[in-house]
C-alpha cells in the first residue's frame, strides 16, 4: 500500500484499518516542531545548575562571575527565586529552600540570550554546601524500610488471603527465590524541554512543553504560579517519547516559566541528557522475594511476592511490583506486599508499565523455576493455573485470553516444550516463555465535534500524541462514529484550550480520549440527522464529557493479557547473550489500528529486551548519583540487537470496556519480555540468573561455574 492511499472504504469499518500515522511525513522531513524548536522572537535560554553533593544544604551561591558574563539576563537561586504556590509534587518546589535531597537536584538557574551563554553562566555559578553523609544503597534489611499504605496506582501495599506461609510449608513442590531489577531510565529520544512565554501585558502564559498531557501541566502551573487556568495555554503538538517520564510536569517546565517571568522574554529550557538521570524520574530498583508452593500436578497452592524498593527523601513513590501477582494465577493462600525505604536518591517515577514490568519479571521467572522443579512444560504450568476470576478481588474477568495467547504463541513460535537446548559451536541456544498482563484503566475526557458546511469535520480533544499514533487512531474513531470518510475528519490535539483530556499514560489514552470522541461524534451525528437543509455558515457542533461513564465502577476485572516467546544464544566464550527471535501474542481488546498497534507492541518488546540484556543504571555509592548519564553509557538496544520481532494478537470482543472495545496497548509489550528472555537463557545455559540485566560479566562468571539447574544440564 502506498503511503498516500489512505482513503478507506467506509462500508468496512475504518476502525481496525492499518491507517498510516497522520504526522508521519512532517516527522520524517523535520517539519514537525517540538517544544525546544519554537523560535519565538527575542527568545532567551535557560540552563539549570545541579547540586554536586548527595545530601546536605546550600550555604552560599555566588552568582557574581556568572552575572558578569556577556548576554546573561539573570541567575535565580534558592535565596531569590520567586516563591511558588502549592503543588502535590514536592519535586516541583524548585529553588524554594536550601536543602539538597539528592545529587543533581537543581540549586540555581541561569538565563541568557543564547543557549551557550546560559550554559556558561550556569558553569560559572559557585555553590557551596554543607554536605552530610548519604546513603543511596537499597538492600534487604535496610533499617529505613517500612510498609507504605499504598503503592503507585493507589493499590493497597499489602494484601493477604488465607495462610500462605503454612500452605507454602505444606506444599510438595516449592520455589523460594530472590530476584533483583536495577534502576532503569526512560530516556525518551526527545529530552525534556519547554519554551515558556509570559506576556506581562495581557497576563497570559503560553508554554510549549514536551509532556504526556497538557491539561495536567496547565493545572499544576496554575497552582505553582498562582494564575487562573484560563490565563495559561500549554501546547504539545509533537512529543518525542515519554514512557512515563513526562506523565506529570517535571522540573524543566517549572524553571522555564520562572525564567520567562523573570526576564519578560520567551525562554527555552531543554535538559541536557546528562542531567536527565537525576531529575525526571527513573524506575526504582526492586528486590523480589517470590515463594511458590504447588502440588505435583502444578496447581499452585501458595504464592507470596514481597517487594523491596526505594524512594527519595522528598516524595514517596512505591513501584507496585507485587500487584500483577494479584491478577495472574489462582493460588488460594497468597500474600503480596511492598516495603520501601527513603534514600538520598533522585525521585523515582513512572516508567513504562510501572509495577507490571519488574513484577512480572520476577513472577514469570519464578513460574519458570517452578516448571523446572516440576519437570513440566512452562506453557502447561501457566495453563494449569489460569484463573477463572481475578484472584485478589474474586471479580469475573471482562475477558481473559491468556491461555489462547500461550497456545497461539507456542504454535507460531514452534515452542520446543522441554526439549534440550542446542549448541552451535560456542553458542548455547535455548527458548523461553513468559506471560504478560496490564490493567485496563480509563479516565474522564471531554471532546467536541464540529461539522462544517463544506462536508468536513473537526474533532477537538486534548489528547497527546507521544509517538504512539494517537492523532491517527482518534481520527479513525471519529470517522467511524460519524460514518464519514477518514479524509474528511481533522483532529486537533495537544492544546490545553481544547476539551480536557487525561495524560497519555497508563495505556489509557485511546480508550479515554476515544470514548469522548466517540460520544461527541455520535451526538453530532444525531444533530445532523435532525437537521434539514444546508448547514449554517458556522456549522453544527456537539460535545461530550465522559466523566460519568468513565468513573462508573465496573463489576468486572479488566486486564489485557499476553505471552512472550524468546529464542536466545549465549556465547560461552564471552558471556554475550543475544536474542535471536522474539514473538508476542496479545489479547488487548479490539485493535483499532494494526499498523500503529504493532509499532507500540514491538516497541515495548524492544524495551523489554533492553531491560533483560543491556539497560542498567547504577547508583554510585561514593558520589550518590547514577553512573550512566548519556546514551553511550546507558545501553538501549541498538538496531543490531533487535532481531525479527513479531507481535500478534487475538482480536477480543469485550463489551465491558468502552464503545470501541479496546484495551490499552502502550505498555503490555514490555511486560514479561525480560522473563521470557531470562528463562530462555536459563534453558540454554543451565544457569538461572536472578539479577538483571544479563550482561557478559554476569553470564560469563556463571558459565565458568557449575550449572545451577537440572533442566539445562541436559544440554
Amino acid at each position, binding site marked *: 500500500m502506498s503511503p498516500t492511499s489512505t482513503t478507506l472504504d467506509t462500508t468496512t469499518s475504518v476502525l481496525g484499518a492499518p491507517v498510516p500515522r497522520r504526522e508521519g511525513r512532517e516527522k520524517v522531513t523535520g517539519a514537525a516542531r517540538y517544544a525546544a524548536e519554537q523560535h519565538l522572537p527575542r527568545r532567551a535560554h535557560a540552563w539549570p545548575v545541579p547540586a554536586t553533593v548527595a545530601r546536605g544544604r546550600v550555604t552560599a551561591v555566588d552568582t557574581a562571575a556568572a552575572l558578569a558574563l556577556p548576554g546573561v539576563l539573570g541567575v535565580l537561586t534558592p535565596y531569590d527565586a520567586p516563591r511558588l504556590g502549592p503543588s502535590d509534587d514536592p519535586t516541583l518546589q524548585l529553588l524554594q529552600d536550601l536543602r539538597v535531597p539528592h545529587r543533581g537536584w537543581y540549586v540555581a538557574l541561569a538565563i541568557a540570550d543564547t543557549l551557550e551563554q546560559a550554559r*556558561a553562566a550556569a558553569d560559572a555559578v559557585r555553590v557551596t554546601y554543607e554536605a552530610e553523609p548519604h546513603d543511596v544503597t537499597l538492600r534487604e534489611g535496610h533499617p529505613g524500610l517500612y510498609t507504605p499504605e499504598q503503592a503507585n496506582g493507589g493499590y493497597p501495599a499489602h494484601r493477604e488471603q488465607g495462610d500462605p506461609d503454612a500452605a507454602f510449608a505444606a506444599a510438595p513442590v516449592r520455589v523460594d527465590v530472590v530476584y533483583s531489577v536495577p534502576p532503569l531510565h526512560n530516556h525518551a529520544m526527545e529530552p525534556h524541554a519547554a519554551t515558556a512565554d509570559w506576556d506581562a501585558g495581557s497576563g497570559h502564559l503560553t508554554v510549549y512543553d514536551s509532556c504526556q498531557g497538557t491539561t495536567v501541566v496547565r493545572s499544576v502551573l496554575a497552582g505553582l504560579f498562582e494564575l487562573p487556568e484560563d490565563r495559561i495555554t500549554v501546547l504539545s503538538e509533537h512529543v518525542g517519547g515519554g514512557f512515563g517520564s513526562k506523565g506529570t510536569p517535571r522540573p524543566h517546565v517549572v524553571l522555564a516559566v520562572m525564567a520567562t517571568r523573570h526576564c519578560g522574554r520567551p525562554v527555552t529550557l531543554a535538559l541536557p541528557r546528562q542531567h536527565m538521570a537525576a531529575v525526571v524520574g527513573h524506575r526504582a530498583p526492586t528486590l523480589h522475594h517470590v515463594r511458590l508452593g504447588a502440588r505435583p500436578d502444578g496447581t499452585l497452592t501458595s504464592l507470596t511476592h514481597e517487594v523491596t524498593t526505594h524512594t527519595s527523601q522528598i516524595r514517596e513513590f512505591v513501584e507496585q511490583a507485587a500487584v500483577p501477582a494479584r491478577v495472574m494465577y489462582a493460588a488460594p493462600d497468597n500474600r503480596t506486599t511492598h516495603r520501601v525505604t527513603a534514600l538520598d536518591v533522585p525521585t523515582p517515577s513512572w516508567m513504562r508499565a510501572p509495577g507490571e514490568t519488574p513484577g512480572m519479571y520476577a513472577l514469570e521467572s519464578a513460574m519458570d523455576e517452578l516448571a523446572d522443579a516440576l519437570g513440566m512444560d512452562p506453557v502447561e504450568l501457566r495453563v494449569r493455573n489460569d484463573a477463572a476470576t481475578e484472584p485478589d478481588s474474586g471479580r469475573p474477568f471482562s475477558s481473559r485470553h491468556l491461555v489462547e495467547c500461550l497456545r497461539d504463541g507456542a504454535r507460531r513460535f514452534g515452542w520446543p516444550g522441554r526439549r534440550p537446548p542446542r549448541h552451535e559451536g560456542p553458542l548455547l541456544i535455548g527458548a523461553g516463555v513468559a506471560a504478560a498482563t496490564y490493567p485496563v484503566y480509563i479516565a474522564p475526557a471531554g471532546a467536541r465535534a464540529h461539522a462544517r458546511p463544506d462536508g468536513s469535520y473537526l474533532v477537538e480533544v486534548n489528547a497527546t500524541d507521544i509517538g504512539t499514533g494517537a492523532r491517527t487512531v482518534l481520527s479513525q474513531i471519529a470517522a467511524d462514529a460519524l460514518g464519514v470518510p477518514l479524509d474528511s475528519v481533522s483532529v486537533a490535539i495537544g492544546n490545553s484550550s481544547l476539551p480536557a483530556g487525561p495524560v497519555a499514560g497508563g495505556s489509557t489514552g485511546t480508550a479515554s480520549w476515544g470514548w469522548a470522541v466517540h460520544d461527541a461524534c455520535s451526538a453530532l451525528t444525531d444533530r445532523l440527522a435532525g437537521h434539514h437543509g444546508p448547514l449554517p455558515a458556522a456549522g453544527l457542533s456537539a460535545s461530550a464529557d465522559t466523566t460519568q461513564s468513565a468513573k462508573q465502577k465496573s463489576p468486572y476485572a479488566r486486564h489485557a493479557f499476553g505471552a512472550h516467546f524468546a529464542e536466545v544464544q549465549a556465547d560461552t566464550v564471552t558471556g554475550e547473550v543475544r536474542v535471536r527471535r522474539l514473538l508476542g501474542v496479545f489479547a488487548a481488546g479490539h485493535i483499532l489500528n494494526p499498523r500503529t498497534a504493532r509499532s507500540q507492541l514491538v516497541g515495548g518488546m524492544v524495551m523489554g529486551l533492553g531491560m533483560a540484556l543491556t539497560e542498567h543504571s547504577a547508583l554510585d555509592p561514593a558520589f550518590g548519583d547514577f*553512573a550512566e548519564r548519556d546514551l553511550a*553509557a546507558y*545501553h538501549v538496544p541498538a538496531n543490531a540487537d533487535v532481531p525479527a520481532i513479531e507481535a500478534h494478537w487475538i482480536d477480543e470482543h469485550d463489551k465491558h470496556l468502552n464503545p470501541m472495545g479496546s484495551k490499552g496497548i502502550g505498555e503490555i509489550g514490555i511486560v514479561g519480555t525480560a522473563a521470557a528472555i531470562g528463562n530462555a537463557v536459563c534453558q540454554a545455559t543451565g544457569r538461572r540468573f536472578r539479577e538483571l540485566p544479563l550482561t*557478559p560479566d554476569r553470564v560469563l*562468571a556463571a558459565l565458568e561455574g557449575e550449572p545451577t539447574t537440572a533442566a539445562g544440564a541436559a544440554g
Partner: protein
Amino acid sequence: MKPFAYVRATTLEEAADAYAAHPGSRYLAGGTNLVDLMKLGIEAPGALIDISRLPMEEIGELPGGGLRVGANVRNSDLAADPRVRERYPLLSQALLSGASGQLRNVATTGGNLLQRTRCGYFQDLSKPCNKREPGSGCGAREGIHRDHAVLGHSEQCIATQPSDMAVALAALDAEVELYGGGGTTRTVAVTEFHRLPGDHPEQDTVIRPGEIITAVVLPAAAPGAVSLYRKARERTSYAFALASVAVLLDLDDGRVRRVALAFGGLAHRPWRATTAEARLTGAAPQPDTVRAAVEAELAQARPLRDNAYKVPLARNLACQAIAALAHSAGPVP
C-alpha cells in the same frame, strides 16, 4: 561561553605555526570526540586549528607491500579499502566494530588514535579525576568501575583506552608518523604511542605539544599470515569493548612462526601480550598450550573490586581467536 579562535590550516607548517601562536590550541580533524569534550567542558581550547583539509587523505602503497594511511583517512574509508580488507582484515574488523556508521564516516585515523577515555569520572567535571585534573584523585577506584582497567593501571588512574582501531594497529606493529613543526618528523611504534598512566595519567600518549599525526604506516603483511579482531560488549553495536583481542598468526608447518596478540579494553593502552607471544612462538597452537600462554600474560592482571570478569573474558577471547585462526591456517600437528 568560552570564545575560541578557529584557524583553518592549508599546510602542516601553517598548522604548527598556528598552534605555537595560540596558547592552549587543539587540532581539529573529525571532531567526534573533541567537540563532545568541549561541550562537556573537559576541553576548553583557546584555538581550534582545523587540519581536516590538509592533504592527508591518501592510502598509499609502500615498497615491499605495506600501506601508508594518511591521518585524515576516515575510519569508514579505511575499513572499506580493498587492500586493507585483503591484507589486514583485523584492522577492517576493528574499525567496523567501533562507534556507529555516522561517526565512522567523520572520524579520522589520526583522531581515532587520540580519542580519550570514556571513564565517567573523567567526563564529569563535578567529580575528581587525575587525568582531567592532576592531583584531584580518582573517582572510579572506589566508584563504578566495571568497565575499567585490569592491566597496567596505577594508583592515579584506572581508565582504559577506548579505541578498537589502535588494538589492531598494535598487533600489526604499525607506526605513527608525527610532524613536529619546523619540518621535523619522527616515527613512533603504535605500541609505544599510548602510555600507561603511572603518575601522569593526564598524558594519554607520547605525542609532544604541537605535534601532528600525519600518517599511520602498516608494515607488509606476511604471506600466509591470518588475522582476526574480536570484541565483547554489552550490545551488538555502538558500545565500547569490555575486552577485545587482535591476533595475527603466521604458522609454519603447524607451528607458530610468528604471533602478535593485543588486547583492548583492559588497559590505558592497547596491551601487546609479549609474554604470551614469546611462549607461543615455535610452539604448536594446541588449546592447552595457547591457554597456558595467555594465562601467563594475564597473570599480571590486577582486577579491581568489580571487574575481575575481564580476565577470563580476555583469556577466552584470545584462546578462541587463536584457535579459529589456527584452524583456518591449516591442521595443527
